[in-house]
C-alpha cells in the first residue's frame, strides 16, 4: 500500500493524475453551501443540541468501579434522598453509572451522593459529583465565542500578511467556518452531547483547519508565483492560474491524507478508550469533536478553501487575461497541451 500511495503521490505530483478540485469548484462550493445550510437547519428542526449539564445547569453523579450497574437502583436512591425531578440514570461504561438530575442545592447534592454510594455499595472514592449552576455554561459559551472571534480576526490578519493576499485568508477562514458549522451539524444530527470538552475540541478543530489550509496554500502560492507578472518560468506559465491551484491541491493531497491519518490515529485511540472504557467524559467528548472535525476540516481545505480562492482570484481581470492567453495558446499550439491533466481530468 505504501508503494501504491507513493506511486499515487508521484502521479499527483507530475499532474498525471489529477482530481478536479478547482475545475468543479461550482459543484463543490454549492455542495458546501447546501451542507452548511443543512447544518444550520438541523438544530432548528431538531430543537437544538443535546447540551450537557454544564450548559443547562444541573447535578451529575458518576459511580465508577461497581459491579451492579442496575439503573433502577440509582433511580430509587435519588428518589429516596431528594425530591429531584428529571432524573436520568445511564450505564455509560462497564461498571460505571451516571446519574443526572435537575439542579440540586448543596445539601441535596451531598445527600444524593451518600445515598447513591450506599445503594451501589460503593466507597467514597468511587462517587464523583458535579454540580453546575445555570450561569456557568453561559459563561463558558460566551468565552468560547470570544475566543473564536479573536482567533479568527488574528488568524485572518496573520495569514493575509503571510500570503500577501487577503483572498487566501478569506478562503481559509471560510473553509474553517464551513468546517465548524458542518461539525456542529453532525453533532446535532447524531445527538452527540455538547459539553465544555466538546467545545474545546471545536476550538482545536479551528486551528487544525486553518493549519491545513496554510500548508496547501503555501504550495498554491509557490505554483502560482509569477504567473500574472509573466515572471513564471515558461513551463509553469503553460497552465492557467486555476489549473496551477488545482495542481497544488493535488500535489499536497498525499500530505493531506497522511496528515489526517496521523492526526486521526491518536484521536481515535482516545475516542475508543474514552467511549468504551471510561464512558462519557472529557476524553470522549474532546476526541469525538476532534475526530469529526479533523475529517471535515481536511475535506474542507481541498473542496472549499482552494476552489473558493480560485474563484475569488478568477474575478480579477489580470487572472482572466492569463487564463485566456494560456487557453488561446493551447488552441493555436494544439498538440500536447490538450493532454493537460487539469483540462482532461484524471485519465484512464
Amino acid at each position, binding site marked *: 500500500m505504501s508503494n501504491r500511495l507513493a506511486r499515487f503521490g508521484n502521479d499527483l505530483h507530475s499532474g498525471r493524475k489529477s482530481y478536479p478540485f478547482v475545475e468543479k469548484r461550482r459543484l463543490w462550493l454549492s455542495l458546501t453551501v447546501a451542507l452548511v445550510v443543512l447544518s444550520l437547519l438541523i438544530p432548528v428542526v431538531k430543537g437544538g443540541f443535546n447540551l450537557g449539564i454544564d450548559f443547562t445547569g444541573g447535578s451529575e453523579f458518576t459511580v465508577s468501579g461497581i459491579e451492579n450497574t442496575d439503573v433502577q437502583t440509582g433511580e430509587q436512591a435519588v428518589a429516596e434522598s431528594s425530591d429531584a425531578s428529571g432524573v436520568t440514570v445511564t450505564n455509560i461504561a462497564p461498571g460505571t453509572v451516571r446519574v443526572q438530575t435537575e439542579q440540586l442545592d448543596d445539601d441535596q447534592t451531598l445527600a444524593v451522593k451518600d445515598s447513591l454510594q450506599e445503594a451501589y455499595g460503593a466507597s*467514597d472514592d468511587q462517587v464523583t459529583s458535579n454540580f453546575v449552576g445555570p450561569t456557568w455554561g453561559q459563561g463558558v459559551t460566551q468565552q468560547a465565542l470570544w475566543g473564536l472571534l479573536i482567533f479568527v480576526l488574528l488568524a485572518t490578519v496573520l495569514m493575509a500578511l503571510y500570503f500577501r493576499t487577503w483572498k487566501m485568508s478569506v478562503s481559509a477562514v471560510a473553509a474553517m467556518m464551513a468546517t465548524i458549522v458542518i461539525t456542529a451539524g453532525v453533532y446535532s444530527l447524531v445527538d452527540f452531547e455538547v459539553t465544555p470538552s466538546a467545545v474545546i475540541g471545536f476550538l482545536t478543530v479551528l486551528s487544525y483547519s486553518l493549519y491545513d489550509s496554510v500548508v496547501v496554500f503555501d504550495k498554491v502560492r509557490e505554483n502560482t508565483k509569477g504567473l500574472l507578472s509573466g515572471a513564471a*518560468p515558461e513551463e509553469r506559465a503553460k497552465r492557467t492560474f486555476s489549473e496551477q491551484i488545482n495542481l497544488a491541491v493535488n500535489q499536497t493531497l498525499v500530505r493531506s491524507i497522511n496528515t489526517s491519518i496521523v492526526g486521526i490515529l491518536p484521536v*481515535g485511540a482516545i475516542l475508543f478508550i474514552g467511549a468504551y472504557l471510561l464512558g462519557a467524559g472529557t476524553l470522549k467528548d474532546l476526541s469525538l469533536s476532534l475526530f469529526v472535525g479533523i475529517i471535515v476540516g481536511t475535506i474542507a481545505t481541498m473542496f472549499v478553501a482552494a476552489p473558493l480562492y480560485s474563484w475569488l482570484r478568477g474575478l480579477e481581470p489580470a487572472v482572466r487575461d492569463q487564463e485566456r492567453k494560456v487557453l488561446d495558446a493551447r488552441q493555436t499550439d494544439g498538440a500536447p497541451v490538450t493532454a493537460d491533466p487539469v483540462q482532461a481530468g484524471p485519465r484512464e
Partner: protein
Amino acid sequence: MASDKDTSGRSGADESKTSPSKAASRAPRTVRSGSQAAVSTAKRGLVALAVLTIALAGILIYGVTTDRTGWDPKLALDLEGGTQMVLSPELQEAQDGQEITQEQLDQAVEIIRQRVDGTGVSEAEISTQSGSNIVVSMPGVPSSETRDLIQTSAQMAFRPVITTAEGTPTPEEQRTPVEDIPEPDAEPTDSSDPNWVTPELVKEFESLDCAAQRPQEERKAQDPEKAVVACDPANNAKYILGPLEIPGTDIDDASYGMANNQQGMSTGQYAVNLQFNSEGTETFKELSERLYQIGQAQQGDPRSQFAILLDGTVISAPSMNAVINDGSAQITGSFTEEDARFLSEQLKYGALPVSFSIESEQQISATLGSNQLRMGIIAGLVGLALVCVYSMFQYRWLGLVTISSLLVAGLITYFAITLLGWSANYRLSLAGVAGLIVAIGQTADSFIVYFERIRDEIRAGRSIPAAVDHGWKRARQTVLAAKAVNLLAAVVLYFVAVGNVRGFAFTLGLTAIADLLVVFLFTHPVMVLLTRTKYFGGGAKNSGLDPEALDAVPFYRGAGRVRSPEDSDGLTIAERRRRQKAAETPGDGAADGADVSGGSSAVDQTEQTEGSTR
C-alpha cells in the same frame, strides 16, 4: 557520515551533473563548502538541542535530589481526585450595581485561601478565572464546615452584650408573658443600655434555639442601629446585643500566639491579638472604657462583654478587663491553638463585604482520577504506536526519523511540564493529557510536510542531499507559518477561555514550541547527516527516499547519460510519460537532450526556491 559523498547542488548547472540515483558513488564528486557548512550547521543544531535537553534534565535532577519537586508532573484535580468549586462573588446590597474589581477579587482569593488553609486543608488552590470567578480546588471532599467557610460573606461586627442565656429555647411555660415584659422606660443612652430591649426582642430571645439552623438571610438581616439576638453555637449561648459599635472593616490585623502576663511571662495560654485602624481604635477605646466600668461596678455582669459577630453569629464574646487606648486588644480564654488560629483568621479576613455563590462544583474521586490518568496514558501510547507504525509504513526507514523526533519532542515536553509544575505550579489535567495526545498528530505533521517536500524535490530530479536542502527551505517556511497558526490558537484559547480549556490550550502551545525546536534542531540536522550516509544518501530501496520509487525525472546514470526509465518500454504509460515530459520541457528539442530538460528544470526549481524564500 561521509560528507564528501555528494554536493549540495547550489546551482542548476551543478545540479544537473549530480546523481540522484543509486549510482551516486559513480557520479563526479565535488566537495563543496556548502555541503560542509550544511553538515556543520546540522551538528551545531544537534549540539544545541543536546545542551538544552541536558540543561532541562539537570534542573529537574537538581530539584528532585534536593527534594523540591518530583519526577512526575503535577496533576490537576480531575486526575488526582478532589473537589473543584467555581464561586462567583456577590457584593452586599449596600454596593449593589457595583462591579467587582480585580483588586477585590484578589483580596477575596486571598481570604478564601486563608480560610481554607485555616481549616487545615492542605494543597488547596484558589485562583481567579476570567476576571470574575474564583476557582477553589482541593484534594478530597471538603467538610460542610469548609464549604460554609468558603462561601460565607464576611460581615463582621462588634456589638456590646446586654444579656445572655444558654443556647436552648426557654421552655414555653417558663417564658415571660409578653404583656409582663416592661417596655423600655427611657431612650437608650449608649449601646450597652438595657433600654434597647423591647418585649418583642425578649420574646424572640426566649424562643431562640441555637441548635436549629437559621437561614443565612435571616442572620444577615441584623439592623446595625438596633439591638439584636444572636447565637454562639460553639459555646451554646445566646445573646441580646446592643447596636453595632465597630464594623469589621475597622480591623487592621489579627494574629494569635501565647498570651503574656503583666510581667511579660508566658501564661501558657493562647491569645488572639487584635489591631484596629485609627477609626476603630477610637471607637474601641470608648467601648472599652464603658465596658470596663460596668465590669468594675459589678463583677460578672454580662454587659462587660462584647460580641464579635461574623454573619450574625457570635464567634467570640470576651469581657473587657482593661481600657484599651491604642487599639491593640488581646483576647484570651481557654483557646486551643486551633481555636486561636481560627479566630484570628476570621478576624483578619472577616471584613470583606463580598459573599460567594457556588457556580459549579465537581467532586472527583481519587479512584476515578487515577483511572482516567491511566486510560489517558494508554490512549497516548496506543496513539503514538499507531503513528509510529504508520510512518514506518509510509516512509520506510525514514519513519525512524519521525519516531525519534517524536520521542525527543516528548522528552522536551515532559521536562517542560514537570519543571513548570515545580516553578509555576502548572498541573496537568485530563484535557491537558488529551492536548498532548492530539499534539502527537500535529507534531508528526511537521515531519510529513518536510518529507513530502523532500520527495517532491527528488521527483523533480534533485540528488538526495540537494533535495533535503531545497525541501527544507520550503518546508521550513510552511512549518513556521502553520505552527504560527497553532500557536496563535493556543495563545488565544489560553487567554480567553476558562477552566479546562486553558489546560488544553497550554499543552497545545507547549507542544507546538517543542515541535518547532525538534524540527529545527533535530529532524532537519538528522536528515542532513543521514543523507551523507550511503544508505539514505544513495536512496536505497527502503530508505523512503528511493528516487526510483518516487519516479524521479530525469533519470541519469553517471554524468549526463540517460537511463531509460523502467516504464518506458513501449507501454502506454511510457508514451504518456514522454508526452508529459515533452509538455514540461521548453522547446521542441527536448528529445535530444536530457541535459537540456534536466538543466532547465533544475534552473526553474532553483529560481522557484530562491524566489520564494527571498
